[in-house]
C-alpha cells in the first residue's frame, strides 16, 4: 500500500466534491489509519488541512466517517497539535451541541484535552459549560467515562476550573 503512494493519491481525491467518492475515500483512509506507518504518512501529507472542510458538514455520513478518521489520528501528539492549529476545536464543540455525534466527539476531545497547551484553547469555547450541563443532566447514576475524563482533564487548567466553578 505504502509503496504505491496510495495515501497521497487518496488525499488528493479529498479535494473533489462527489459525496459517494468522498465517503469511500474517507472510509479507506480510516481503515489505513489503524497502522502507525500509514498514520505518519497521512500526517506528513497534511491530512488535517484536508479534513478541516468536513467539520462540520451537512452530509451526516461524511461527517461521521471524517470524525472516526480524526479519532484514529488523534492518538498522535503532533496531529493533536495540528488539529488545534487548524482551529478545529471550536468547530468540534459546535458539533457536540447536537446529540448525534456526542459519543464520538467526546472521545476525540478527551484525546485533545490531554495536552496542556490545548487545554487553554477549550477555555474560549462553549465546551466547558456544555460538559458541565451534560454531567449534571446525565440520566445514568455514574457519568460516562469519556465525559467525566474530559472534565477531569479540562479542570486541571485554572481558567477552566474557574469557569466550571462559576457555572456551579
Amino acid at each position, binding site marked *: 500500500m505504502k509503496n504505491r503512494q496510495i495515501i497521497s493519491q487518496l488525499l488528493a481525491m479529498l479535494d473533489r466534491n462527489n459525496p459517494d467518492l468522498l465517503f469511500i475515500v474517507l472510509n479507506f483512509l480510516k481503515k489505513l489509519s489503524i497502522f502507525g506507518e500509514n498514520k505518519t504518512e497521512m500526517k506528513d501529507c497534511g491530512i488535517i488541512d484536508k479534513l478541516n472542510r468536513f467539520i462540520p458538514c451537512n452530509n451526516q455520513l461524511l461527517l461521521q466517517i471524517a470524525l472516526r478518521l480524526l479519532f484514529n489520528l488523534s492518538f498522535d501528539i503532533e496531529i493533536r497539535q495540528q488539529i488545534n492549529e487548524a482551529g478545529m476545536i471550536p468547530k468540534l464543540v459546535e458539533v457536540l451541541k447536537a446529540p448525534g455525534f456526542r459519543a464520538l466527539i467526546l472521545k476525540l476531545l478527551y484525546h485533545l484535552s490531554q495536552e496542556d497547551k490545548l487545554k487553554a484553547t477549550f477555555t474560549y469555547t462553549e465546551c466547558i459549560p456544555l460538559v*458541565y450541563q451534560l*454531567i*449534571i443532566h446525565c440520566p445514568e*447514576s*455514574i*457519568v460516562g*467515562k469519556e465525559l*467525566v*475524563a474530559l*472534565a*477531569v482533564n479540562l*479542570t*486541571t*487548567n*485554572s481558567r*477552566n*476550573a*474557574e469557569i*466550571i*466553578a462559576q457555572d*456551579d
Partner: protein
Amino acid sequence: MQLIERAFKFQDTLLFKVCRNVAQFYPNSLDTLENYMGGYIELAHQSGQNTDLLLELLGTMVYMPTDKWEQAIEDFGVIEFLHNHLSNGFAEDDIVLECVMLVGTIVRNDTIAQMIASSYLIKLL
C-alpha cells in the same frame, strides 16, 4: 454546587476528582467547599476499602484551608482517622501522602497544633 451534590448522591469517584481539580486550581471555590466539609469527612469514614474514592476525598480536603477544621476535628474524630491510616502499614503510598498533606492543611492555629502535638500523629510521621 450541583457537581458536588451529584458526586455525593451517586458516590461517583471521577466526579469527586473533578471537584478536587476545581478545589486545587481555583482556590476561590473554598467558600462553597467549606459547606460540604462535614460530608467529605463522613464519606471518607465510610469509604472503607474503596481507596480510589478515599484518595479523592482526602485530596480535596487538602485544599480546604479553613478555620472550621478546629470544630470538625472534634466532631468527626479527624485525628483518629488520620492516625488509623498512617499507622496502617499496608496503606497505599498515595493515601499516606494525602494524609500527611492533610495534617499540614489542618494545622491552622495554636489549638489544633496543640491537639496534634499531643496525639500520636507526630511519632507516626
